[in-house]
């Protein structure tokens, strides 16, 4: 008998083990839901799968009576636009500031400690200041995401730039490169895959800030809908929305990973196997 730590699951067993927790979660939910619904068929806390399906149908595939819009897709589009814009701007700002900080000692001396402090401020704690500065509209929601994620990306990019082997930077200089050319031809291409990795890690926080922003003041969006229908405990709407958000987050993470592998194969050489 091999040691436990040396026993690898066969492909079939592996698939089975992967699915198992999901199946268990669904079954546990189903049992709990059945139990509650048998007591009160109109209980809203743990709706049945049929009720959930009906809610999805209502929100995603039927025009809303009052507004004539498909609420689910409208919410999704609004949220995706906000998070895309927010994380996109964060990534760009993070990249530029991180590179400046990592590459130029003069900038680093001035900015690095400030950014470190900035990244430690919990944005949710200074919401009123954010409101007064950025209002309550789209800008504020995107800004909350940016303020929540950009400093983290900046710091990560800075540390990634400083972790590049010094030898490379010196080599480039002996080949006649200016600071600018070192930045765009040596540092930038090597930092981009690390930026994607950093964005992947901050996506979780970005979603958190998005939902928070939409809970505070909004007219549409995934977070808005969840907090609105929570008022009358429509778990049949909240649950599919939560699953949808999880799927979107997973899809974004997965596609960023694939994009990185496609564009920067040299970066992923170590992960190949």
């Amino acid at each position, binding site marked *: 008998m091999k040691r436990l730590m040396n026993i690898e699951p066969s492909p079939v067993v592996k698939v089975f083990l992967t699915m198992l927790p999901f199946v268990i979660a669904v079954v546990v939910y189903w049992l709990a839901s059945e139990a509650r619904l048998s007591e009160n068929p109109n209980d809203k806390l743990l709706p049945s799968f049929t009720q959930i399906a009906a809610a999805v149908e209502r929100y995603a595939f039927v025009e809303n009576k009052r507004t004539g819009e498909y609420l689910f897709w409208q919410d999704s589009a609004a949220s995706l636009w906000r998070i895309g814009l927010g994380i996109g701007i964060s990534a760009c700002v993070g990249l530029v500031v991180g590179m400046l900080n990592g590459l130029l000692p003069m900038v680093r001396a001035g900015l690095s400690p400030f950014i470190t402090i900035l990244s430690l401020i919990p944005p949710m704690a200074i919401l009123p200041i954010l409101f007064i500065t950025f209002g309550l509209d789209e800008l504020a929601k995107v800004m909350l995401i940016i303020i929540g994620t950009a400093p983290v990306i900046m710091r990560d990019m800075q540390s990634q730039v400083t972790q590049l082997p010094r030898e*490379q930077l*010196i080599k*480039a*200089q002996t080949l006649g490169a200016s600071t*600018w*050319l070192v930045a765009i031809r040596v540092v930038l291409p090597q930092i981009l895959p690390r930026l994607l990795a950093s964005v992947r890690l901050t996506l979780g926080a970005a979603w958190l800030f998005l939902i928070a922003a939409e809970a505070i003041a909004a007219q549409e969006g995934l977070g808005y809908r969840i907090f609105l229908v929570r008022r009358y405990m429509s778990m049949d709407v909240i649950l599919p929305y939560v699953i949808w958000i999880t799927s979107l987050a997973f899809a974004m993470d997965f596609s960023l990973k694939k994009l990185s592998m496609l564009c920067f194969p*040299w970066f992923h050489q170590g992960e190949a196997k």
Partner: protein
Amino acid sequence: MSFLTINNLWKSYGDVQVLERINLSVEQGEFVSMVGASGCGKSTFLNMLLGKEQATRGQILLEGNMLKQEPDEERGIVFQRYSVFPHLNVLQNVMIADEFTEAKILGWVLGSKRKLIKEKALAFIDAVGLTPALKKYPHELSGGMQQRLAIAQALMKAPKILLLDEPFGALDPGIRADMHQLIRDIWKKNKLTIFMVTHDIKEGFELGSRLWVFDKVRHDPHAPNMYGARVTYDLALNTGGQSADINNIVAEINQHEKNK
């Protein structure tokens, strides 16, 4: 006036004296191997030639002019590791050397200029024997091939001096012999002036036309950092020669290594 002149060079880090009173001159086309116990200051000396570090006192003159205080095109470098760009393939790695100087803003060259650069790069790639690996990325190359690539890069700029910082230290012995042959050929063909730091004293003897041994002349057992190293031996070498000298010097360096 010599090609490279070193006038009363001192280097210290705070209280730690690393090098002291170094006065040497080197002619164009020499191949200087630098050996010595670890921590003797030979790498520091190389870094001063490179412009990465500055002398505390004294000066280094190249063709009568002060060396620039930062790395530039006059001095090529091959490090033990990490001297090629991992995100570029072999051809791009070599071509980038001229793109750096030809395209100051965009960093990319197009059209006929690009063709010229490519031809030049291909010639140097051929010279180091990497033509079959043109499209490969560094991570797909062996350690020896990566060093060949680094040499090809450096050659693109036709540097006045080429610095080698333990260039073959991480390679297998078999490959090392090949590399010795390569660097010797390139040195002769391109009439380069080369400074090489090596741990391997035999390599220093075999490869160079001149050997410098770095060592401390004065010792204070109570304050080991009080005095810096000097060049204690400055030997002209004929390749394959002076085995008696080798044995003496090897013994002496080993002795110092033990004393530490």
